[in-house]
């Protein structure tokens, strides 16, 4: 397995996705929080179109680290559950893949709140 190739593609694709975000902020004056929302929605739409999975296969972390990946894994979880359980899967599939990241963030936030104070 070659390491250099995937690392270069992760850097280029991941960097490019962030560059698009910076264009939204600086040129189109979208606030940072709104930019994050747009990327998640874009990830979900691309996943529905079947485009995000090939991008992850190609760019690895370059596509799976940006927040747009969150929209992709949410969509993927719902699609899997829809096939497995039928219509109720539309609800139960939401956190199937994405739940781990949210649970981890809650735990990290909890310990940070207990042991650290903002420096400013």
């Amino acid at each position, binding site marked *: 397995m070659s390491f250099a190739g995937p690392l270069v593609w992760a850097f280029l694709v991941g960097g490019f996705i962030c560059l698009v975000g910076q264009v939204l*902020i600086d040129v189109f004056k979208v606030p*940072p929080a709104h930019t994050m929302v747009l990327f998640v929605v874009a990830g979900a739409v691309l996943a529905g179109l079947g485009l995000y999975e090939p991008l992850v296969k190609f760019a690895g972390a370059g596509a799976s680290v940006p927040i747009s990946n969150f929209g992709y894994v949410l969509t993927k979880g719902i699609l899997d559950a829809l096939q497995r359980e039928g219509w109720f899967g539309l609800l139960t599939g939401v956190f199937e893949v994405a739940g781990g990241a949210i649970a981890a963030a809650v735990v990290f936030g909890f310990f940070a709140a207990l042991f650290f104070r*903002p*420096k*400013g």
Partner: protein
Amino acid sequence: MAVASMIPVQAAAKRLGHQSMRFETAPAIIASASVVGPREGQGPLGRYFETVLEDERYGERCFEQAESRILKDAVNAALGAAGWQETELDALLSGDLLNQTVASNYAVRNTKMPFLGVFAACATIAEGLLVGASLLEAGLAARVVAAASSHHEAAERQYRYPNEFGAQRPPTAQWTATAAGAVALVVPATGCETAGLPRITYATIGRVVDCGQKDPYDMGTAEVPAAWDTLVAHFRETGRDPAYYDLIVTGDLARIGSEIFREGMRRRGLEVGSRHVDCGVLLYRPEQDVHAGGSGAGCAASVLASYILKEMRAGRFRRVLFIGTGSLHNPVSIQQGEAIPAIAHAVAIEA
């Protein structure tokens, strides 16, 4: 003028036009004091401040309590410099940016000072001076202190994002100063030596002006039309022109707002030129990463209480027009799509 005719004849001489007033007694500024944070202490005015904090928290549990304490320290330092006891003070007029001006409210709890809360955002100290001087002029008080404060981290968490959130700031953004300033006023007849002290001679009450500017990261621009409005009224109603003053001090339009301000004054035939300075520009060095400059109620208050008044006492400036400018929005009004209304109050200080 129907309204003017309702004012008693004697008062009419003090009231000039629609917005301005003349103080016959010319209340004297007997003392002033300022307390600032570490970043402000490293700025160009560092040596003018009474106290410079080593850290923004000031040993307190939260940033709001730190702000209350620097305000209290500034007020006490001004009282000390004036040689007054708390019980001798007839009124403290103070305000800040925290919800319901709690920094001021908590700073004076369980003290002996009669307290009037005032709010005009970054123009708070100007409003305090104007109202305080009016109390003295009317003979309803003999000794008053006007004060204001702001705290960078306390303001960030209330108005913008959590302090550790990694948001990028645009070039128009201003840095809320961690600073407090207090100014002690007295009627010259109260028996103390007031010769040579700076005196408040005129004031112009501002009107709330909304220029349609909605970007909360660009408050300096939003405040410019309010400053124009007040200054046009001031010069028309007092019969003075900009050349009368050694120094025209705005607080705080910051760098970008100051340029728009000067151009607009030029177009109104009121060239301010190099006699104009801005507290938000004076407080920091350009390389201190504060973008357009400083802001916050404590910015104008601390710059006035330190650099401006000390240099007046040293004789470097004799006639100063101080214009506090404030943005009167809150986070909810911005999210609801409202523009930023602004106000400017002018106070003429002459030595």
